[in-house]
């Protein structure tokens, strides 16, 4: 059994000889949404391990890029158009099979100056390099228009974030960055990816998972609404009748 593991790990060990390795961590592996949740500050930090423990001697800088992604969603984007010069209505639409519900990228320097466009597209680094995968084929200019509209909308909602220069690197080995998770994120499994970039190449990648879920009362309510819809509706009705009746009774006392 042990031998089997060594065989599996062997390529990694060899790689570790020649390339630096990332040891990342996040301040919270689990984020619980309770009634007072207004968002969370996630601290992403870690160390860069160079082969042999020696910092590279050339003067090329080492950069760190961290990306936090929310669960992907299948979404429908609609575009409004003026109808008959009179009113604005939803006209064209485009469906995306897997758009990230949340995407934050922080880097030690602006991402465009670190990597070329092709590499950014491969690793999905940067808001203009997201692979949004439209489900319906559309002309290129229309796809661009919709992608731009979607990213702009999400960016202003605080769900797509680009923070160039937000990663701090200390003594070339320790890095840290703070990413703010807003209250509007959907629940589910988030990933925090860390990329080590040198000389226009991604040298190392490491991933950590973060679980965001509702807990306590919030979890109970969301689950009841989903699983016991009839009972949940009845409770809502009884609650509103009780409120109205109660207020009437109190008011008649005075």
């Amino acid at each position, binding site marked *: 059994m042990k031998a089997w593991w060594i065989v599996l790990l062997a390529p990694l060990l060899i790689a570790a000889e020649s390339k630096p390795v990332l040891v990342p961590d996040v301040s919270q592996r689990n984020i619980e*949404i*309770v*009634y*007072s*949740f*207004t*968002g969370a500050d996630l601290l992403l930090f870690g160390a860069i391990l160079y082969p042999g423990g020696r910092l590279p001697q050339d003067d090329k800088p080492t950069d760190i890029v961290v990306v936090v992604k929310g669960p992907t*969603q*299948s*979404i*429908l*984007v*609609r*575009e*409004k158009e*003026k109808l008959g010069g*009179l*009113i*604005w*209505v*939803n006209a064209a*639409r485009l*469906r995306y099979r897997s758009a990230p519900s949340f995407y934050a990228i922080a880097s030690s320097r602006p991402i465009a100056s670190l990597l070329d466009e092709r590499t950014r597209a491969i690793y999905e680094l940067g808001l203009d390099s997201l692979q949004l995968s439209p489900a319906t084929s559309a002309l290129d200019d229309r796809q661009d228009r*919709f992608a731009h*509209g*979607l990213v*702009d*909308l*999400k960016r202003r909602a605080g769900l797509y974030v680009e923070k160039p220069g937000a990663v701090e690197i200390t003594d070339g080995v320790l890095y840290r960055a703070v990413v703010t998770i807003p*209250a*509007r994120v*959907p*629940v589910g499994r988030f990933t925090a990816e860390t990329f080590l970039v040198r000389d226009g190449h991604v040298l190392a990648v490491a991933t950590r998972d973060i679980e965001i879920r*509702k807990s306590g*009362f*919030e*979890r109970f*309510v*969301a689950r009841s*609404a*989903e699983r016991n*819809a*009839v009972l*949940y*509706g*009845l*409770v*809502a*009705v009884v*609650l*509103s*009748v009780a*409120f*109205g*009746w*109660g*207020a*009437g009774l*109190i*008011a008649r006392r005075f």
Partner: protein
Amino acid sequence: MDIYLPIANLSVNALVIVLLGGGVGLLSGMLGVGGGFLTTPLLIVYGIPPTVAAASAASQVTGASVSGVFAHFRRDGVDTKMGGVLVAGGLLGSLAGGQVFRLLQATGQIDTVIAIIYVLLLGFIGSMMGREAIGAIRVSRGAVPPRARKRRHHPLVAALPFRTRFYRSGLYISPLAPLLLGFFVGILTILLGVGGGFILVPAMLYLLGMTTQVVVGTSLFQTLFVTAMATMVHATTTKAVDIVLAALLLLGSVAGAQVGARFAAKAKPEYLRLALAIIVLSLAVWIAIGLGWRPAEIYSVEAS
């Protein structure tokens, strides 16, 4: 004080929602309307998703109508037979409304349709109410009152078959007329999250020709049941009823409604009606401008 809404999936300032409910409740207590037609658009402006806003506003209207219904029952101001027929129509209407809602949602035109219905309805009712209120104010200032309109139902209503007696309403008409009226209001309750009192009351007066004393009580009776049904329909189909949001709204609105009712006892009713007409008309104009104005967001995203 921020609080997380488990269904809307966002956090809001609880105080703002309670105050919003309170303001609407104040108006509803003063003017005798449910206030759903104000709550839903205000919630949407605050950033609550439209479906959650419409679904949760309905329960606020339920709460607002309860104490009114009891008060009218004590005064024998409810025609339960007429109310029962209206409710039956309303329940059918809310089920049909659920289907219409889903259809419009699928084509992406739900927001536009809601806005257009609002403009037409609010514009029509606001101008009708305003004209009537101004006439009443003129009379109270010494103008010669016009000859009282003879209370009678619309000729179309009289043509319907299976007539029956509604004693409290003082009517001998076919139950199909209130059934259809209830059906229509039920659809609107689902689509707009409104109680429909602002349509039902004039329709009962001018279309059915009901006795004035039972109109408001019977309308509230219908509102109570149909908004409760609307909450159930939303809870089981769209699953967009946010009970925390509803509780916050209720907290403000039931308190506001009681304060409003005290105000109303002191104020002159025709001025209150004029005030309501002005509010309703300005809301209609506001939404109409919004339809033609270039929207702040050209793109919108929904889950699929």
